[in-house]
């Protein structure tokens, strides 16, 4: 295992044909990527599928990676896009009644939790796209605004404003329920 190597070194080796370097990259970023998806999906199987799709995309895309941004920025952007398409699909599935409605309290494993995660993410999914993306990165991945703005190709102040409005909206929605 090449755990002492940087992401850039691993990608360069992968581009030179070393498949094992890609595997090391996956090993390194799997916990964070999977953790992000599982927070949003609240379903480990869905989260694993999304993580697999992201790394499959990475396998194709990294062959032409030009090192213009950090790999993590690239990965977070892919994760966010994946979640957006997951939310879109879920919305359609909901409209078509393809998913069973979860049992009440299914996700509430902690007595200290004030809202069920399902309610929270349903509310997050209803936010405008930029606000939703900022909230996901800020709350689920705990990224700094500077990195969020870089991932979303926006300014830091725009990211902060979007986050502010998103939290305000969520507060109204969740506390009125």
């Amino acid at each position, binding site marked *: 295992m090449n755990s002492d190597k940087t992401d850039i070194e691993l990608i360069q080796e992968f581009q030179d044909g070393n498949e094992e370097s890609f*595997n090391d990259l*996956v*090993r390194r970023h*799997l*916990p964070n990527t*999977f*953790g992000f998806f*599982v*927070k949003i999906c*609240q379903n*480990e199987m869905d*989260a*694993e599928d999304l*993580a*697999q799709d992201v*790394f*499959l995309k990475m*396998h194709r895309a990294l062959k032409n990676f030009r090192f213009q941004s950090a790999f993590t920025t690239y990965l977070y952007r892919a994760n966010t896009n994946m979640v957006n398409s997951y939310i879109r699909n879920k919305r359609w599935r909901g409209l078509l009644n393809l998913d069973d409605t979860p049992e009440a309290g299914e996700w509430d494993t*902690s007595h*200290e*939790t*004030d*809202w069920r*995660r399902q309610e*929270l993410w349903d509310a997050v999914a209803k936010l405008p796209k930029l606000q939703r993306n900022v909230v996901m990165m800020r*709350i*689920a991945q*705990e990224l700094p605004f500077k990195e969020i703005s870089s991932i979303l190709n926006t300014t830091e102040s725009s990211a902060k404003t979007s986050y502010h409005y998103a*939290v*305000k909206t*969520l*507060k109204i929605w969740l506390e009125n329920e």
Partner: protein
Amino acid sequence: MNNFESKLKHALQAENSVPDADTFISGLHTERKSRQSARRQFYNGIAAGMFILSLGLFTASQLGTDSAELMVYDTYEILDEDDRTEEEFLTEMAVYFLEESDDIWATVAFLDETEFLESLSEENL
């Protein structure tokens, strides 16, 4: 607001078990190969379709005329063939009647009544 944010973060604190990396990577490469194979099959299908289509177009172009013209041409051919067959049949019948009859003038009169001679002469025009 800060209290609300901390409640949000708290609500999301999930204790999840990360899947085993080696199993995940193995599944990832299996899926990658399967998708690669499906993609290759798709492109082969497209290529075969294109080949058949171009072969069809090439064959059609070799016929020289469009399909509508071919159909009309064939129809005329069939009609001409029918006319020739009918003419031969009538001529043979007339010869047969004349040979078999005892009274040749009565036979000519019969053929005249059936307007056979007129139709035969029109065709000869």
